């Protein structure tokens, strides 16, 4: 969607919930299609729509309607609202503060090893005063080793790995997020790698940061991320014979309805909820 069409559609006022760089993506009147007032999926690609809220960042899903509740009838008039959910996108230089210094040192050190930084670092994101390097997964151990050993970088402490599952981020559904702390320079950065659901392999960092042993087992246990090179990748929290990976988004929370003061309270994932 191009920004050039911004402002041509929106007959309804855009809701002002922190919208800074777009018009809120309110759809047109819907007169062209869909007489019922709800736009079908393909409307997202139509040319006569206003710009989405920022056209950068990775799309991880879409949100429909104004209030997030589904299943009820739309009495608000906002039922046709379609917005894409985007994570903060790539940042261009300068990143500000010591971020540039770390990025320069890392790129320089990778160059020395004969690696092309553009191939290794998919993108760099600066958001909420935090620096994130998105790394191509096959280069992760090399990058981590460089970050640990280079005297100008010296990220000696890894605080483990956190898995995140984005079913809507096609081709890169599973993310592994590492936070590295430099005690020497008093800095904290984040590394992020992604893997598709169909091929959930990420190189293990245990050889660089032995502390990741249990953390990688945990991420495997809950997300099914397979860390190649881990000395003993087994389940750590769930029983050894457990089926499935509980913290993936397609894995149900479970639970049973409970009676409370005469009323049936549905299980937490069955209740009316808002997104």
């Amino acid at each position: 969607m191009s920004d050039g069409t911004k402002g041509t559609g929106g007959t309804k006022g855009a809701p002002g919930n922190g919208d800074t760089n777009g018009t809120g993506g309110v759809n047109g009147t819907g007169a062209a299609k869909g007489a019922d007032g709800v736009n079908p999926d393909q409307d997202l690609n139509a040319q006569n729509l206003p710009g989405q809220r920022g056209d950068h960042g990775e799309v991880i899903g879409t949100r429909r309607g104004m209030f997030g509740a589904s299943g009820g009838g739309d009495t608000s008039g906002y039922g046709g609202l379609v917005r894409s959910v985007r994570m903060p996108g790539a940042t261009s230089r300068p990143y500000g503060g010591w971020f540039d210094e770390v990025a320069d040192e890392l790129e320089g050190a990778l160059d020395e090893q004969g690696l092309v930084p553009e191939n290794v670092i998919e993108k760099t994101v600066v958001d909420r005063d935090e620096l994130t390097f998105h790394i191509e997964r096959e280069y992760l151990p090399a990058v981590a080793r460089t970050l640990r050993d280079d005297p100008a970088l010296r990220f000696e402490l890894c605080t483990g790995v956190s898995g995140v599952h984005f079913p809507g981020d096609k081709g890169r559904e599973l993310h592994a997020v590492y936070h590295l702390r430099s005690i020497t320079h008093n800095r904290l950065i984040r590394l992020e790698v992604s893997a598709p659901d169909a091929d959930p392999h990420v190189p293990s960092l245990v050889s660089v940061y032995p502390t990741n042993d249990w953390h990688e087992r945990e991420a495997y246990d809950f997300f099914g991320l397979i860390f190649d090179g881990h000395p003993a990748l087994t389940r750590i929290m769930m029983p050894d014979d457990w089926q499935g990976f509980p913290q993936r988004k397609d894995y149900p929370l479970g639970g049973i309805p409970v009676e409370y003061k005469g009323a049936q309270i549905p299980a937490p994932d069955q209740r009316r909820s808002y997104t």
Partner: protein
Amino acid sequence: MSTSHATPRETTEGTVYTVTGGDWDEIAAAAARTDDERIVVNMGPQHPSTHGVLRLILEIDGETVTEARCGIGYLHTGIEKNLEFRTWTQGTTFVTRMDYLTPFFNETAYCLAVEKLLGITDEVPDRASVIRVMLMELNRLSSHLVAIATGGMELGATTIMIYGFRDRELILDIYELITGLRMNHAYIRPGGLAQDLPPGAVDQVREFVKKMRKNLVEYDKLATGNPVFKGRMQDIGYLDLAGCLATGATGPVLRSAGLPHDLRKTQPYCGYEHYDFEVPTADTCDSYGRFLIRLEEMRQSLRIVEQCLDRLAPGPVMVGDKKIAWPAQLAMGPDGLGNSLDHIKKIMGTSMEALIHHFKLVTEGFRVPPGQAYAAVESPKGELGVHAVSDGGTRPYRVHFRDPSFTNLQAMAAMCEGGQVADVIVAVASIDPVMGGVDR
């Protein structure tokens, strides 16, 4: 040689099988032929000195531990998954139950992450931050008291145990006065606190600081110079600086290796840069050093609590943003804590908009812009990190807790292998793992 199968026999209670396996004789004979005393022992998961349901799998040769491994997960309750099905505010009710000995640290770390995502870190009122610091430092005291008390009990020093729990009780009384609960408080909320300090809280904390100063001396007298205590603790659970960094150990374990790394000093949060305190270290790398560090940290915590009381100035305890802050302070009614009658009168009687707003905020919650944030606090056990991801909705998309107990427990094998079985207990106690935090 007996028969190689079990023979059934009918009784009034049902069928009884007499097991007389043939191969057991062979196994016993084979075991008798080898002259080593190598056996594998399961210590736990139900063992009084394993801090909850921790299972230690020890391969021992006589009294020497040749290999040690942990089995964890017995207390896994799926808190991280559950968070994804509640609002951001309800999250504090869950995270406070992770490491149940450090509830205020869990709550603060979580709230700092949510506030970072919301971009309101600087808008949290001073009074809220001061009360957060005060509760965290009281919590550091109560957590270290349990560590020292149970650690002492595991050595057979029951007096230390009694002293520790006696003093912890004083702190739990303060919690109860301020939050209404002895544990699982959910008192610290994204944006500030659930409510202000009740009347009398400041006086009670002041009274406590005075009393605790006197009581702390008793631990010194009882344990610090005690030859039996030192004999059991010194050079036990050895882990040097390289070992700490490799295994990711933080907190007293790291500081006992001589590195004065404390997030309160290096990456201050909640205004820690305004407080005057020392970061104690030791260079012994052993359990005794960790004990001394905990003792000194308790003294420093008392100093910080005192400074908090002096810094407490009247003011709000919640951000001013009405889209985040719940519309009313709670008040004590005849049926317990609830919305104040004034607020109910307003929303039910005079303002339809206020009623709608209240209803939407409480049932639906607030939205958090998409993105991710990492917030870390120095818990009594080390770096407690929270990685929170939002997809722009009213519920957390993913929250991961990097619990220091979980990470530090990995160092158990390095501390115990090659030592005596009895010293495993001392080494594990010096890590001070809490399984609620390890398994989450």
